[in-house]
């Protein structure tokens, strides 16, 4: 498998994982706000997901670029 294809496949899988994490974390964050639990940890999960999302953008290799 070419390096760019592998990187794109990893980015695709990572984005799917992050989608599930981000949606679940968002709802946990909403639900626990009612019973006084510390929301900071969950907020960190949401932030980490957003950072990972930016990371995957760097992983996707432009196959249409010369030399890619």
């Amino acid at each position, binding site marked *: 498998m070419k390096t760019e294809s592998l990187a794109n496949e990893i980015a*695709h899988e*990572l984005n*799917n994982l*992050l*989608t*599930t994490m981000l949606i679940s974390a*968002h*709802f946990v964050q909403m639900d626990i706000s009612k019973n006084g639990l510390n929301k900071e940890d969950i907020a960190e999960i949401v932030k980490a997901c957003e950072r990972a999302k930016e990371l*995957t953008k760097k992983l*996707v290799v432009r196959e249409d670029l010369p030399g890619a």
Partner: protein
Amino acid sequence: MTMSFNILVVEDENDVRKAIIKALRRSGLQLTEVFEADSGEKGLQIISEQNIDFVLVDLYLPGLNGEEMVKRMRIDPDTQKLPVVFISGENREDRIQMLLKKGSGFISKPFQPEILGETIINMIS
């Protein structure tokens, strides 16, 4: 006037599909029913059998991919105007713009759940 929708979610990854459906159910949208398919072929079959109002489809599916599925919808008079939003990790701006120019919406994975309801409302209104 309150609108109620039949929505179809086409996504091959089971966990992602379930998460999208959960987000739809908590979006505040009035949903009559949420249909789900794990392939483009099954998505087209559901569209032909049910009264679908809106389609959310993963761009990259095994077999008939999301783009091909929507191409087939667009040549069928019964489904050519059905609103569609692609959900994908695709971040090449030229590809995204091409999909938007064809009248479809686009949501970039991963996404905050509230973007689903906002996008659907924007497209229908």
